[in-house]
């Protein structure tokens, strides 16, 4: 049998999706009531009065709820999901605003009606009067702290965190060269094509709740909702339907709507559904990326870094439910493939009157990589060295693996790189893009009056973060294999890649395997899909569970065939005895035999009744045995596994309009062995497109009053096909991880991480003007040129 691991097979998901038979959140619950929310139009205000009388005569209105209606734990602030000792001033929102609002889009009133049209009719007739307060918008205003977002949080500082390795001050004092840089990245967002949504059905007869949410964690939603509504976990099913993209924003839970909708469904005794519209997604889900950084770096005459001192400020918005994960990742993953000498990193996480921040694909790494790679380029410029040479001289070498940075990672465990080969990656990248031949290309272009530049960005990404995932594999009497894992899917092709793993481990055809993700009815213990962890965590757990099922199958087969288990193999779902033609039995038959029954409800079961099988001198199910051919196992590694990669981009900048055109985009990538190369490459393509967006187009344009000026797809410049590279050239290196049974590393986020860094490097190279802030638009580049000319003219 061909090994399925590593095969670029088409996805099993696609057939129903291209037929229009996908089942996304709003495709479900046609009988459900609809919700609309009255949301704050102010960035910062006190609520003076809420007058709902105008809405009461709207035909089809079912209910209106404000904070005053919320009972018990639903009236408490939503949870701070990831507490941390450094997060001393954590504040979270109420499910419906209580007395104050802290960002435009915060939900104030919930309306339930027969459909969304009517719900919106009623919502617009509800009059909320506010006393507006000065808004804190942007990192500078938050740092100045002349106004406070939360009156009891001085300096707008939720958290301050410092990590040090070695004596940075001494290293900088002794360094032959010192550089200081100020570097910034603006806000952006995940922006999946499908927004958030939740559907709830309360069954008053069984006293159980069934909830569907467009989420990245069904078990997380279940725990949060059960806690808020005072229900037992076993009385809440959370089912993740097809999800139209996540990219991080759907890991946040519970959203206010995720607890309000099931509560209303129970109150009203009718199914209730909330489906976010696009403007709501922009102003009431989550953003990321905004950070300011100040870097001091000391290095020797060869460009080797002796000391690195990074101080940065992170804008986390009005509340901090997801804790300080993003700046913690920046402060550790900034180091990339390099040894920093002595290192000190300190950040403040700051409140502003803007939308909350939760991880967006890359999660603090694009900012960190931007900072480190800008620093590398600045060192190269200072010493007049090739940019790749400076990088090479600072690389961690393959023989230094595992490499301990002496820091704590986002999971509060030591930051130890398990494996990787950065010099080889750089060699591959230089060959792929033609780094050494670029000067000739530049000269030729210059002769035609064209301006071109090349840039690169290198990163290391901690993937497969814990705590754990689990899986269940069961062989049905039909021989079909049913696989369940608890984490969720948003387009990654899990049904395909997990089936590939099971096909190899269990020896069954791919077409006999069905994988279910994100359904608490099928698997109740799980963490979720984020941090490029699904393949590593659930992939490993599924491999282990399949091995357990295989061992059980071989044990039962050995009895049935009177053979030694070591002489058995499973091919195409049939167990065979090596060297004995005809001595074989199917997995389906074994599943029947392994389940001693009293009742012969079909022909297969008849073969397994207590009168047909078994040794009457023993109990039908042995003392340490269980019925069935199944396996359940968990994977919980000591630490993350570290993937890596390097991107190079060639740009052309228009001498007149400052338009930035992408001529080449090259990726080398090391996520260990690839389960399905075409799916990995698809992930890279999508990540690169988001990197292009983050570097050249996408930003959240808040005005001084905290109004988001571009809260639509018309104004938020998400790339169309015309904005992405015509080709994304990819080469792989496969350095296996020693930390999991398949040797794999995560691949989901990689494509986006070095985008801003690589583009800044290339634009700087084309223009000869230092680039310190991303994204960069043609008009910003035009302005940089103007200022540069002013400074250089006498």
């Amino acid at each position, binding site marked *: 049998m061909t090994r399925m691991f590593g095969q670029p097979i*088409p*996805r099993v*998901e*696609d*057939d129903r*999706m*291209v*037929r*229009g*038979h*996908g*089942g*996304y959140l*709003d*495709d479900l619950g*046609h009988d459900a009531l609809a919700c609309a929310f009255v949301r704050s139009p102010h960035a910062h205000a006190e609520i003076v009065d809420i007058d709902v009388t105008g809405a009461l*005569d*709207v*035909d089809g209105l079912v209910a209106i709820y404000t904070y005053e209606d919320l009972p018990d734990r639903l009236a408490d602030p939503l949870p701070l999901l990831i507490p941390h000792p450094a997060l001393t001033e954590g504040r979270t929102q109420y499910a419906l605003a209580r007395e104050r609002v802290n960002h435009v889009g915060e939900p104030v009133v919930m309306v339930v009606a027969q*459909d969304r*049209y009517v719900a919106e*009719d009623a919502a617009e007739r509800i009059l909320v009067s506010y006393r507006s307060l000065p808004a804190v918008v942007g990192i500078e205003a938050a740092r100045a702290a002349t106004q406070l977002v939360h009156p009891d949080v001085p300096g707008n500082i939720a958290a301050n965190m410092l990590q040090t390795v070695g004596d940075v001050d001494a290293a900088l004092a002794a360094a032959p060269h010192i550089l200081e840089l100020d570097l910034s990245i603006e806000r952006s967002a995940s*922006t*999946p*094509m*499908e927004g958030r949504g939740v559907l709830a059905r309360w069954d008053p007869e069984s006293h159980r709740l069934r909830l569907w949410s467009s989420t990245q964690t069904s078990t997380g939603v279940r725990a949060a909702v059960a806690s808020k509504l005072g229900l037992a976990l076993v009385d809440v099913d959370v089912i993740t339907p*097809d*999800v*139209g*993209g996540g*990219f991080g924003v759907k890991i946040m839970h519970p959203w206010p709507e995720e607890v309000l909708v099931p509560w209303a469904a129970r109150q009203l005794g009718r199914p209730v559904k909330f489906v976010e*519209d*696009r403007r709501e997604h922009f102003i009431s889900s989550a953003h990321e990326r905004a950070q300011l950084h100040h870097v001091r770096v000391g290095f020797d005459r060869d460009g080797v870094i002796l000391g690195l001192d990074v101080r940065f400020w992170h804008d986390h918005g009005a509340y901090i439910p997801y804790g300080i994960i993003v700046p913690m990742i920046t402060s550790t993953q900034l180091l990339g493939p390099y040894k920093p000498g002595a290192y000190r990193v300190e950040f403040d996480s700051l409140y502003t009157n803007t939308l909350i921040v939760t991880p967006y694909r890359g999660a603090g790494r694009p900012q960190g990589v931007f900072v480190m790679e800008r620093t590398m380029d600045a060192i190269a410029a200072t010493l007049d060295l090739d940019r790749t040479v400076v990088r090479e001289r600072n690389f961690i070498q393959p023989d230094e693996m595992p490499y301990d940075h002496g820091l704590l990672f986002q999971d509060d465990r030591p930051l130890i790189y398990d494996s990787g080969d950065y010099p080889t990656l750089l060699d591959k990248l230089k060959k792929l893009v033609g780094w050494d031949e670029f000067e000739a290309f530049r000269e030729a272009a210059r002769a035609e009056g064209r301006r071109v530049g090349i840039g690169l960005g290198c990163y290391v990404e901690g993937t497969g973060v814990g705590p754990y995932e689990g899986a269940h594999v069961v062989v049905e009497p039909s021989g079909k294999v049913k696989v369940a894992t608890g984490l969720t899917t*948003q*387009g*990654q*092709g899990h049904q395909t890649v997990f089936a590939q793993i099971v096909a190899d481990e269990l020896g069954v055809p791919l077409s006999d395997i069905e994988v279910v993700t994100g359904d608490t009815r099928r698997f109740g213990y799980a963490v979720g899909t984020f941090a490029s962890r699904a393949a590593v965590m659930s992939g490993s757990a599924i491999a282990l569970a399949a091995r357990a099922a295989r061992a059980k199958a071989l044990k039962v087969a050995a009895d049935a065939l009177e053979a030694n288990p070591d002489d058995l193999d499973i091919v195409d779902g049939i167990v065979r005895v090596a060297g004995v033609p005809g001595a074989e039995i199917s997995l389906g038959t074994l599943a029947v035999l392994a389940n001693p029954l009293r009742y012969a409800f079909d022909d297969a079961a008849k073969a397994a009744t207590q009168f047909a099988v078994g040794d009457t001198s023993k109990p039908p199910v042995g003392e340490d045995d269980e019925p069935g051919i199944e396996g359940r196992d968990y994977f919980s590694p000591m630490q993350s596994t570290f993937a890596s990669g390097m991107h190079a981009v060639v740009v052309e900048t228009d001498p007149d309009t400052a338009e930035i055109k992408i001529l080449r985009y090259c990726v080398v990538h090391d996520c260990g062995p690839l389960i399905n190369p*075409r*799916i990995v*490459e*698809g992930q890279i*393509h*999508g*990540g*690169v*497109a*988001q990197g292009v967006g983050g570097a050249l187009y996408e930003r959240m344009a808040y005005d001084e009053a905290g109004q988001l000026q571009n809260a*639509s*797809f*018309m104004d938020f410049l*998400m790339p*169309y*096909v*015309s904005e*992405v590279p*015509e*080709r*994304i050239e990819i080469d792989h290196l496969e350095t296996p991880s020693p930390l999991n049974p398949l040797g794999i590393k995560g691949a989901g986020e990689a*494509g986006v991480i070095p985008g801003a860094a690589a583009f800044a490097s290339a634009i700087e190279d084309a223009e000869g003007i230092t680039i310190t802030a991303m994204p960069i638009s043609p008009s910003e580049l035009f302005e940089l040129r103007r200022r540069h000319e002013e400074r250089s003219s006498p």
Partner: protein
Amino acid sequence: MTDELFDVRLVVNGAAHDVRVPARRLLSDTLRHDLQLTGTHVGCEHGVCGACTVLVGGAPMRSCLLLTVSMDGAAITTVEGLTEADGALSAVQQAFVDCHGLQCGFCTPGFLTTITAGLRANPDPTEEQARELIGGNLCRCTGYQNIVRSVLRAAELQRERAAT
């Protein structure tokens, strides 16, 4: 307040449906919620993303910008109607499977309808024309690389199928 209702006949994927809707009801909502043809997706509600694209008399149109009452008698094809009568995938659908042209699949129905119409107008597009053809549809997952390939593959499949 009660909305006045209007009787409208829609011919969707060859089948006639009589619906009674208020004047403001969007075609996308009628298709999705009244007829429960949920393959058509809504991504932005203002005609920018293209996920809701359906064919009206063969021409691609954004169903989130059309009022159902304006569609009386119209022949509409949704993604569900692209599949061949024998249940086989159309060339465009098959090409997306062959080329990994979708990930989360949410934007996919709008691409499939748009490309189906585009290939009728130009059965043999160049790569540049393939890009132009999908230039008005947003996708957040694929970086469009494999969607461009899917367009070219669909054209190839159509030619292969016509030859047999």
